[in-house]
């Protein structure tokens, strides 16, 4: 184990968040984790063997016998004898006492120092916080082994003093963990409430704060314990320890000096160290898994559960889903073949228990060239899943179960992924919902805009740049040059959305799928983005499928509307006739809901002529 693993705090940030909710069940669940419980059992066995060493062997671990040097394993000596004729099994058992006690001492010192200072710094802050973070940096800049060597030169070869000093060096491992957790909950309501109701600081810390970090402390302790063993064994192995006591490191050292005469002498202490180390690591891993597991369910599962919940348990006033779609007929229907023709589409997520959660069911849509088609419905109605299906970008685990997606005559649900990659970006483009999280934070806007153009349009770097700058101007970015060299975090949400729109139309697609393009923006910005989309649509003649839950957006932009509820299309037709005469009760309830929510713009009821 490297001591850096602790100081890296790789464990700390994840754990400190949100553990409270699950801690009561943690112990119980840990006991059901087969790896964790096995590792714990092995550790308990090792500790028991150390405690009851005198019962397990009759030999004196330091009993030198010139007559019995280097005897192999056998009747008299379970694991044979070492270079001084001492019984190896006895030395290992008694060695466990010293080795484990030494590591325990280091862990306890580190824990007491780290937890106390972490609590004080986290809870009271002020100058103590500054001072201790300084000391922490200082301690972490010191190479442990070198300090221990120097300490040994001063204090002499004592296992206990070395372990105490190592404990001090490892204190930051606990400090950082406790400090992060405590400063996180310091100002939470339940702590405030306790403070206001006159509970003493001491009791607040004990009752409300220590319980939060209890499990992570155990986890950290097991790692620190392992590192202390490794360092102690390392020093003893090099011959810098107290040679008069049988530690595992000294046994290893003796084995190493007799490596050529009896190679198996290295094996036994090596095995003891490896088994203990692996058991500690597995114990810590299992504990961490359970901690993270309880802190946050896996994202996919959460998303699927949320969707499923939304599909199955929509709010009560919503009328039941009808299996037929109400169609508002138009005079010139079926005049030309639609650009996008979705027929009987079903999308589902197979669950671990073998069932399939259907999030889209029997959806049919016709989108003609040059039209703006609104797909409207509340969250979880399956509209985004439908949009992703068209792009071939369903989240992992999701699949198209039935139906076809004909784009310009080709069934997208059947084309190979390489072909789909050509279609994406080039012929079908995508405008996401959340502008800030949809730009790669590590690359400039310019780089993200030009990369697709160079692939799709095969233009040179300078041509792509010229085109990108032109596009940025077109989408209303005031200083394209500056934005081109900016990073996403330097843009506002509205600017980022303009950049994403520029990116979507950069390769002259036939169809743009916009997934709630205004939802994450301020109301004033929303109107500007809608204006931009309309202008671009008229300028480029592009077809747009716009996913939204807002009738204001539909009123503002769309020629055609399809209303989606619980994974099905319940009503579809020209925006004007649907607005004039909503038939389906769900459509009507969506209209009623507008009154409660702030519209995209004032005149939402005014339908485009």
């Amino acid at each position, binding site marked *: 184990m490297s001591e850096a693993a602790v100081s*890296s705090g790789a464990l700390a940030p994840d754990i400190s968040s949100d553990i409270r909710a699950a801690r009561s069940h943690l112990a119980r669940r840990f006991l059901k984790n087969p790896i964790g419980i096995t590792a714990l059992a092995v550790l308990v066995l090792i500790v028991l063997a150390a405690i009851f060493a005198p019962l397990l062997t009759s030999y004196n671990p330091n009993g030198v016998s010139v007559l019995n040097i280097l005897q192999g394993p056998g009747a008299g000596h379970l694991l044979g004898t070492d270079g001084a004729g001492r019984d190896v099994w006895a030395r290992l058992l008694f060695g466990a006492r010293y080795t484990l006690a030494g590591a325990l001492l280091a862990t306890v010192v580190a824990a007491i120092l780290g937890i106390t200072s972490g609590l004080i710094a986290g809870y009271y802050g002020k100058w103590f916080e500054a001072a201790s973070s300084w000391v922490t940096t200082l301690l972490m*800049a010191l190479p442990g*082994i070198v300090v221990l060597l120097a300490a*040994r030169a001063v204090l002499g070869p004592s296992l206990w003093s070395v372990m105490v000093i190592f404990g001090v060096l490892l204190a930051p491992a606990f400090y950082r963990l406790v400090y992060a957790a405590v400063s996180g909950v310091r100002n939470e309501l339940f702590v405030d409430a306790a403070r206001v109701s006159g509970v003493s600081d001491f009791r607040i810390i004990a009752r409300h704060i220590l319980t939060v970090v209890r499990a992570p402390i155990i986890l950290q302790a097991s790692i620190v314990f392992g590192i202390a063993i490794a360092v102690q064994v390392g020093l003893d192995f090099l011959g810098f320890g107290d040679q008069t006591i049988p530690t595992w490191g000294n046994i290893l050292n003796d084995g190493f000096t007799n490596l050529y005469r009896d*190679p198996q002498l290295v094996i036994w202490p090596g095995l003891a160290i490896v088994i203990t180390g692996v058991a500690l690591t597995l114990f810590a891993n299992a504990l961490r898994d359970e901690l993270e597991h309880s802190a946050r369910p896996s994202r996919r599962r959460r998303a699927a559960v949320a969707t499923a919940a939304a599909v199955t348990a929509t709010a009560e006033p919503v009328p039941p889903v009808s299996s037929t779609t109400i169609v508002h007929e138009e005079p010139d229907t079926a005049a030309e073949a639609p650009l996008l023709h979705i027929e009987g589409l079903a999308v589902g997520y197979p669950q671990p228990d073998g069932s399939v959660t259907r999030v889209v069911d029997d959806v049919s849509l016709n989108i003609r060239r040059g039209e703006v088609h609104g797909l409207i419905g509340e969250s979880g109605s399956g509209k985004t899943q439908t949009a992703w299906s068209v792009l071939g970008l369903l989240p992992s685990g999701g699949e198209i179960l039935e139906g076809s997606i004909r784009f310009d005559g080709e069934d997208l649900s059947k084309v190979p992924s390489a072909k789909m990659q050509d279609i994406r970006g*080039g012929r079908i483009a995508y405008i996401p919902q959340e502008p800030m999280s949809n730009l790669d*934070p590590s690359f400039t806007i310019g780089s993200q805009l030009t990369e697709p153009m160079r692939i799709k349009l095969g233009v040179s770097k300078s041509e792509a740049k010229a085109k990108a700058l032109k596009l940025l101007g077109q989408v209303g970015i005031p200083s394209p040059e500056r934005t081109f060299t900016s990073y996403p975090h330097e843009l506002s949400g509205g600017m980022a959305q303009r950049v994403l729109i520029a990116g979507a139309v950069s390769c002259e697609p036939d169809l743009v799928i916009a997934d709630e393009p205004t939802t994450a923006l301020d109301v004033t910005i929303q109107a500007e983005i809608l204006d931009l989309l309309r202008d671009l649509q008229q300028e480029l003649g592009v077809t747009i499928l716009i996913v939204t839950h807002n009738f204001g957006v539909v009123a503002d932009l769309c020629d055609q509307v399809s209303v989606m509820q619980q994974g099905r299309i319940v009503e579809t037709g020209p925006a004007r006739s649907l607005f004039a005469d909503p038939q389906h009760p769900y459509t009507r309830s969506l209209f009623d809901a507008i009154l409660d929510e702030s519209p995209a713009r004032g005149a939402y009821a005014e339908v485009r002529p």
Partner: protein
Amino acid sequence: MLTFTVRRLLYGIVLLFVIVTLAYLLLYAAAGNVGRTILGPTATQATVALKNQQLGLNSPLISRYFSWLGHALTGNFGSSWFTNQPVTTAIITRLQVTLTLVLGAVIVSAVVSAGLGVWAALRGGWVDRVIQVFSVLGFAIPGFLIALFLVRIFALGLHWFKPTGYVPLTYYFGGWIRTVTLPVIALSIGLVAGVAQQVRSSVIDSLRQDWVRTLRSRGISERSVLFKHVLRNAGGPALSVLALSFVGLLGGAVIIEQIFGIPGLGQIAVLATSQGDVPLVMGLVVAIGVLVIVVNLAVDLLQGFLNPKARIS
């Protein structure tokens, strides 16, 4: 960015100053009768007194400290009490060796763990599980124990590599490779275990980000999404783990150098501390401190390169 760098540098220098001061005062306070330590128990009282006077140990500790500090700032750290070799020379020749090992381990670990981490994240299934098991073992088994087995198998058994000694790279490449390979592997394994885990989880995390979907929607190839975009974003956290391991790696090198009989800083550290050769120990403290500061600064700059947000803070 410049002010950030300068601030970090100043902070590092203050830190170094504190460490050096503490070390100096503690080491001399604990040094006892230096002349007696050097000359051994057989020397007469008079020669011991003379030795102490030659070493300037009769003046007060504080004035000795400031005189040492003044010389140190000009690069003069005095001479070893036992060999009379100038401390600067002793350390610089050995620093090269240790840096070869440590940097070699960092590079090997970075490459191997990036490969393993990405592989585990993408393939999942048995690949992921095998790499997880490897990580646990690499993390749990101390590096020197691995070194012992490596020596046993590849040096003593197969004779592919040298069990001990060191051949400088400038002297003979083949010899260099035969002497540094095993120590570098022994140093790297624990590091690879930790960093590969970090790469794995950062890659999995990055792949779930919204911008990955948007990149794909632009028709960017999977290869570019993964190796250009995801890996760059996953690089930051992995780099942090690697950087924090650097100090530990210096400590690990001490033990590894002992096992392989390599004349690096570790060997000098062992020798100087066991003899109580305070000028040499102080030189080591300064060398390691400077190294840690330089590495931290380099990592900060690299972090800024990888993560544009880090550049402004």
